[in-house]
Structure formats: C-alpha cells, structure tokens
C-alpha cells in the first residue's frame, strides 16, 4: 500500500490554503483597476462588477436553493 496523502489533515495546511485563496482574491480586486475594459454593457465598466456579481449570485443561489428544498425534498423511498 502506498503512503497516503494527508496534507489537508493538518489544520495549518488548510489555513495556508485559505490564506493563499484570500490573497489571490485581493490581487484580483486590485488588478481590476489596471486593465483596459471594453464593456458591452455600461455596468461592466463599474469597478469590481464581476466580483460583486459572482459573490451575490452564489449567495442568492444558496438561499433560494434552501427555500426550494422546503418544497421539493422527499424521502429517498418516496417513489417506491
């Protein structure tokens, strides 16, 4: 049996990973100010539009999905 990978068993590594993730987010936010935008829609020119839209979309997605679960969730043997 080969040796198992265990990198995410150590909380320190998870923290490092998340740290790297947050740093990359900040870099993305900063880069936004230095690029030339050729916006098809006016709002595409707004600073950090995509970041905001992505974040808000996903939060909304989760909350709507949670609401949807109230209506559509059934037991696994519902159709049996």
């Amino acid at each position, binding site marked *: 049996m080969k040796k*198992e*990978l*265990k990198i*995410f*068993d150590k909380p320190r590594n998870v923290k490092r990973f*998340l740290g790297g*993730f947050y740093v*990359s*987010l900040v870099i*993305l*936010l900063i*880069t*936004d100010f230095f*690029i*030339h*935008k*050729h916006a*098809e*829609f006016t709002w*595409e020119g707004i600073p*950090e*539009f*995509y*970041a*905001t*839209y*992505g*974040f808000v*979309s*996903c*939060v909304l*997605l*989760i909350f*709507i*999905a*949670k609401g*949807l*679960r109230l*209506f*559509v*969730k*059934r*037991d*696994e043997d*519902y*159709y049996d």
Partner: protein
Amino acid sequence: MTNLIPPSAILIIGALFVPFIRGRLKSAYMLLLPSFVFMTLLNMPEGKYWIVKVLDYSLVFGRVDRLSMVFGYIFTIITFIGVLFALKVKDDLQHVAALLYAGGALGVTFAGDFLTLYLFWELLAIASTFLILARRTKASQAAAIRYILVHIFGGLCLLAGIVFYIQQTGTAEFEYIGLSGTASYLIFIGIALNAAIPPLHPWLQDAYPEATVTGAVFMSALTTKSAVYVMARTFPGTELLIWMGALMTAFPIFYAVLENDIRRVLSYSLINQVGFMMCGIGIGTHLAINGAVSHAFCHILYKALLFMAAGSVLHMTGKIRCTDLGGLYKTMPLTCLFCMIGAASISAFPLFSGFVSKSMIVSASAHEKLTIIWLILQFASAGVFHHAGIKVPFFTFFAEDSGIRTKEPPLNMLLAMGIAAFLCVAIAIFPRPLYDILPYPVDYVPYTAAHVVGQLQLLMFGALAFCLLILSGYYPAEMRAINLDTDWFYRKGLSQIMAGITGLCTWVAHICEKIFVRILPERLAELSKKPVSTLAVSYMKLSGKGRLALEEFRKQTRPETVSLGPMGLPVFVSLIFLISLFVVFVFLS
C-alpha cells in the same frame, strides 16, 4: 469516394462481432473501431454520399459539411475514450450497446434526410436503454423503462412532425425548418425532449445516475449533443430557444446544490451546459452558432471526464452519495486531479476548455444586447462553478474523511481520464485547431485581460461565497433525500390522477346505486301498493300544507287495501280479452 461503408455502419456492424472475440484481441478490436471511423472522417470531403433510393425517397446516409464534421469528430473521439474506459468490463451487452449507441449518434450526425435521421434517432434511444438496464438493479430497470417510454413519446412526436412536414413540403431533406406550423412544432418537441429542454428534461437526471459506470460516460456525450446538432441545423435563430436555453442554464443549478448523488449533480449540470448551447443556437449569429458548436465539443470531453471520475469512485467504493464520500484524495489522487481538471473546464476557468467556448455564447448575447439573457448566463456561469466546480470534487475527495480507503481505478480507466483531461487543457491553450473546424470563420480572441480578470473574479468570488457559507454552516447540508422534479407528473401525478378518476367513478356508481337500486324502486313499490294515498301525500307535501294537514288527511281516509283483488280482477279480464283478440287474428283471419 473510396470508402464504401458509412462511419455509422462501421460501428454498428462492428459492434455485432464483439461477442465473438475474446481476450486482448477483443480490446484491440474495440479500440480499432472508433480509430477506423476517425480515419474515415479525415478522408471525407464535403458532399453527399451513400444515397439509397427507397420508394419515392432517397435516404442519405452521408451528408458531410462543416457542421456535421465537428460533431462527427467529437463523437468519434469520445467513443474511443469511452471504449477505453470500459475496456475491462466483462459484459458484452454493454460493449455492443455502447457501440450501437455511438453508431446511432454518428448516423444522426451524417443523416441527410429526415427519414434516415429518425431511424438513427430511435437507435440512439434503444441502444442507450440497454446501458441503463445493464446495471441490473431494481432501480435501474425501473429507470430504464421510464427512460424508453419518454423517448418513445419524443420519437413519435418527431415522426409525426416529419410525416406532416413531408406532406406539406414534399421533401424529406434534413435542413433548416424554423418554428412555424404544426409540423415544425412537433419536430421541435421531439428534438427538445432529447436535448432535455424543460419541462421535458427529467428523464436525464432520472436515468443517467442509474446507468452503469461506463454506460453513463457514453450517455453524457451522445444523446443531448446529437439533439444539439439537430437543433443547430433545423432551428437556428429561433427566439424561443434563447429563453428556453437561459431557463435551462439557471434552474438546474438550484437542484444541483441540493442533490446528494454525485452523478445526479453532474446530470443537472449537464442540463445547465446544454442550456448554454440552446441559447447560442437561439441567438443564431455566426459567433453564437460557433459558440454553441464549440461548447458542445468541449462539453462532451469535460462532462465525460467528470462522469468517468465519478464512475471510478463508484466502481472502486460502491458509493456515490455526497453523504457517504469524503477524503478520497488520499487514496485516489490521480482521479481527484482529473476530476478537478474536469471541474475547472466546466467552470470555464481560463486555461481550461470551457473558457474558450462558453465565452463565445456569452459574448454573442452581449453583442445582440440581450441584457437579461446575459445576466442569467453570467449567474449560471457562477452557479456552475459553485456546484460542478467545487461541490463535486469537494464532497467526493475532500470534506470530512469518510474513512473509505481504496485505490486508483485500473490503468485503462486512468488512461481514458488522462486523455480527456489532456484534451480539456490542450484545447484551452491552443484553441485554434478547434476554431478552424467550426461551421463559420472565427475571429474571436478569448484571452483578453478584461475577459480573463472578469471571469476569474466571477468564479473566485463565487468560490468565496461557498467558502464562507460552508465555514459558517449556512450551506445546505447534504441529505439522504430526493428532490421532486417534473418527472413527478408521470411517476406520481399520473397515478394520483388515476386514483382521482377511480374515486370519481366510484362516487358516480354509488349515487346511481342509491337512486336506481334503492330510492326509485322503493317509491315505485309504494306507489303501486297505495297509489291514491301516495299521490295525495306527495301532492300535499309539495303544495306545503304542513304536517297537521297531512295527519288530518290520514285520519279522514281509511287505509288503502293491500290485497290484489280490486286491481287484479280488471287486469285478469283485460288479459282474457287480449288473448282472445290474438287468437281471433292469428288463427281465424
């Protein structure tokens, strides 16, 4: 044309010999079939070949143009990968069904008339059903029956539409139709069902997770994408498709977030991706059609890759639910890596294939100033990353360690995933060869600074939302449960309608019994016994004389006799009279 056999026939006839070959020769033979098809495709110049005259119609088995060639190439590539993935399966039924299925898809692709198209369309449905049946569980058999019934319905719609269409136009040529008139709507419904356009989509998420490990790989590639091809040929520029496509991209992601079965999550994200293609076909500009076709090309690769990764997990652990899995990166690091490449590709990360194809469709919607559509597509793009890009790898390979200790799948499976993963990355880094085979000339540059940063922001901040919601515990927990979809209408709804109709009929029967068996005979019996007083009492009741008047009446009149005497005698006399009349007329006249 030097070759006498159409590409579809190579696979279909070739499939029939599979059960008679054994061992390594069989593996080599099965891999040779798609390779041979690919060689054939490379030597097929544009034109129409293999035309067979039947009655008044000419069946065209080989219409070759730029649109059909792209789909021909990718169907052949994925057949090779699928066969390689399934090489160790010791079940000839699956091998034969998969090859027939791929042959059907190629047949649809190169069909030049509607009758040939219909022929191969049905072959697709029948062959793929066996890939579900072959799992040989109770659930898969039930799912297979539902699957084939739904597809028979779709096939019949298509057939009816084709018959009307030939009747009206006098031609069976498989070309642009456009949405007008009954025939076109019937054909549209037939194609839409195979493309899983809502509300005709639930067969997909019902059947694919029940298919065999290897069968699902073929299924994820062939049925919906051949429908995309047929739609791109017959209904480009149909406005309805833009809206249906946008709806299709958006609604499955909510289900995908809730779903527990990994392959069902992938099925929902498949519907979502086909939505992008439908949207592109609906927009109908050269850029949009190119986008839809190239997205189908890339999608087939990364979706098959994801289904292969999920299939490998199912194959090695016997488990496929988020609630049962977790921590598998420790023992299946390569599968995990391939899964993440598939996940990055479907999410359209820069340097992964979805990025160079999906963005063409999104850009096309922006060029046409379709504001709402553009917003929905961007929302769906973020949503895809959320469920297919993060959720699938996260709950399978990371998250909480499930304690499962397994190992990598066999070499052939790893190789198949490796080839698909390689192509996903290669297409993204060198998109030119793909762009060169698209139906229209491409002058699209995917890698601009604004596009790369915009897309990265959209995805990474979507990921941030996932991260924060998971850490704070707001993320909906994975549950052992199912979620109702429109298949409820034929799985439960119909039986409830039946129960309702039965209930209604029972009620009517009950009322009838009460009136005609009990109340009416009782009243008639009473009337014949006591005609005068019954009539008098009814009259007094009706005229509202009240209880007192009734009792007065009963006191004043003596009870009617019940004997038959007074009534019977005249009846007896009349009978004698009638019989004598009969005798006189019959015997004496």
